């Protein structure tokens, strides 16, 4: 199972990577992370919006889900690795139609762009979600990669994720020469990423469904970026669960956050109550309702067996998030906002007057020289 792990860095050739959803949180973070790898010769990012993060050598191309255009980019730039970090897994981030458009139609188009005679693509990494397992009464306590969900998907996000993943798996069975990696990520928690759970945990009192205390598992945002990076630099065909160690009861999480539970959501007819709650600023989208009732745990051992190490356990991720919540009122407004300026980026990358990234000194991380060194 893990015998096929082989570091691509050992191969002589240089890599060329395409990242979809460059302007999404994951796309931007991943591009920043991959820029540090010398063996990755080129990073191309596509998105329909401007990038939201400062990138040094990533080339941005503004393009929507048109497979003909993406195919031309892939072939022209001789892309060998495609990382699809575009999946919408939380219905609060965008409208239902746009999520469906991106998740199902977008994935289909991207796969079409990577397939076909003479395609240079040898590796496809798909960021999926543990939503494919759903959350139901008859679930096992820990889903392994080979288990199917126990009941059909009942909400749009879960249906979209299942459909998108099914088309990736179909692609994998047809394109035998492409290594396809699917990463099923647990719900993400972290200071920068905006999810239904981070919204819920920021409330002063945390609503629960009366009589239920679901077991929940999270993964820290940095670990998701590292997991994508790990898949990018190693040869790991197959499906992998990505979720931090530890499954916590919701009441335990509320305790760690230093908050109080508010078990007011009625166990029956919970769905009816969600629209008046939305007016009050509490959003519980449908895919979250079943999680608030039955929870979900995934078995993360397969990815660990491939050599991946998590930086945070679920408990540590919750604690990190709670520290962020305490700092938030102080940091509000201080965060530097980056705006993409196409002309400036072009000048920095193209002008003969600027030094190109390869020539620049490697960024030294962290420790600056102390002026009054002891």
């Amino acid at each position: 199972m893990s015998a096929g792990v082989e570091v691509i860095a050992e191969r002589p050739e240089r890599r060329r990577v395409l990242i979809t959803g460059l302007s999404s949180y994951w796309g931007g973070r991943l591009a920043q992370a991959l820029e540090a790898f010398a063996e990755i010769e080129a990073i191309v990012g596509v998105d329909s919006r401007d990038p939201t993060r400062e990138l040094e050598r990533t080339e941005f191309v503004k393009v929507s889900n048109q497979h003909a255009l993406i195919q031309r980019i892939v072939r022209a730039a001789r892309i060998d690795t495609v990382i699809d970090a575009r999946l919408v897994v939380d219905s609060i981030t965008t409208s239902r139609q746009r999520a469906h458009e991106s998740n199902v139609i977008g994935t289909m188009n991207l796969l079409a762009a990577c397939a076909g005679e003479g395609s240079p693509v040898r590796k496809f990494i798909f960021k999926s979600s543990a939503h494919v397992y759903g959350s139901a009464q008859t679930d096992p306590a820990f889903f392994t990669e080979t288990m199917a969900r126990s009941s059909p998907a009942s909400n749009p996000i879960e249906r979209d994720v299942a459909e998108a993943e099914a088309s990736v798996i179909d692609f994998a069975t047809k394109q035998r020469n492409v290594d396809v990696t699917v990463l099923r990520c647990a719900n993400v928690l972290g200071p920068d990423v905006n999810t239904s759970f981070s919204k819920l945990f920021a409330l002063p009192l945390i609503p629960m469904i009366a009589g239920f205390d679901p077991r929940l598992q999270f993964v820290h945002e940095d670990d998701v970026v590292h997991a994508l990076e790990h898949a990018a630099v190693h040869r790991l065909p197959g499906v992998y669960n990505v979720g931090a160690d530890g499954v916590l009861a919701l009441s335990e999480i509320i305790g760690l956050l230093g908050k109080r539970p508010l078990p007011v959501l009625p166990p029956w007819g919970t769905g009816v109550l969600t629209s008046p709650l939305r007016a009050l600023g509490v959003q519980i989208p449908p895919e979250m309702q079943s999680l608030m009732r039955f929870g979900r745990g995934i078995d993360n051992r397969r990815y660990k067996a491939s050599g991946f190490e998590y930086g945070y356990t679920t408990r540590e991720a919750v604690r990190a998030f709670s520290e962020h919540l305490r700092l938030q009122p102080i940091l509000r407004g201080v965060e530097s906002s980056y705006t993409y300026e196409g002309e400036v980026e072009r000048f920095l990358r193209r002008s003969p007057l600027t030094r190109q990234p390869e020539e620049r000194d490697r960024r030294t991380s962290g420790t600056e020289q102390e002026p009054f060194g002891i």
Partner: protein
Amino acid sequence: MAPRNTSLAPSPEAAEDEAALDVPERDRMRSLLPAVETERRIDDWGRSERIEGVFDATLVEFFYRYWFRCEVEGVENVPADGGALLVSNHAGALPPDAAMIGKAIRDEHPQPRPLYMTVEHFFKGYPGFSALLPKIGCVPAHPANVHRLLYDEGQLVLVFPEGRKGTEKLVKDRYKVQRFGRGGFVEAAMRAEAKLVPVCVVGAEEAAPVFARSKLLQKATGLLYFPLTPTFPWLGPAGMLGYLPAKFRIRFLEPIDTTLMGAEPAEDKALVQSVAQEVRARIQENLHEMVSRRKSVWLG
């Protein structure tokens, strides 16, 4: 559209590879289990040391010592380490037998360890039970849960193969061990290379006698079944705990080692059935013997 959650490019070879994992590979997968975080007082199954401790020191202690006056035989038959599947007879409305078996191991065993009790999926969906039962060591009876507990974590798991046929049976059918499902528990133990420990409980069947069941009230409350007992539903939900003070005797029988049954015994359906029948027969035989030696239901 049917979502296919199987691993990519499913091929028969891949499935064989998985089955033929050699022992070091198994040990490696075990070593990758999440480490215990000592600051946590709840485990990954939702079991809470604190809440279980409170129950253990109060309600369970009272019933075990003073109300049922439990007497335990053969507790040394429960292995001190490694996965073992305890198989017991089962009876009574909201059966007290599981809690008493857990308490017997905790109090009488030279090396006590926690017992995970399997319960129906139904409870995970019923408000109140859903939040409470995992806290005191109950897990839904999913084959994957039993396998992980036995094989990967090497824990003690208690099953009642009679299932609802046991709890629903009326007082006139007491100590008639019902059919043992389809032998799924034997397969689970075989796959997990765990020992099977048959357990006999005398007393539970008189402590919470069910005189009748109400189909109408069952539908109205959405419960699994609606028993009519001396105290339930007359005293409200607390009437579920209105046990009669029957004398409890718990006997742990000699363990059956499933690893001595050849390679892949779980695939041999005839063997699975005969082991299941053997376990049932041993429990029934011991129950008859224990009941025949008992002078009084209440005094023992």
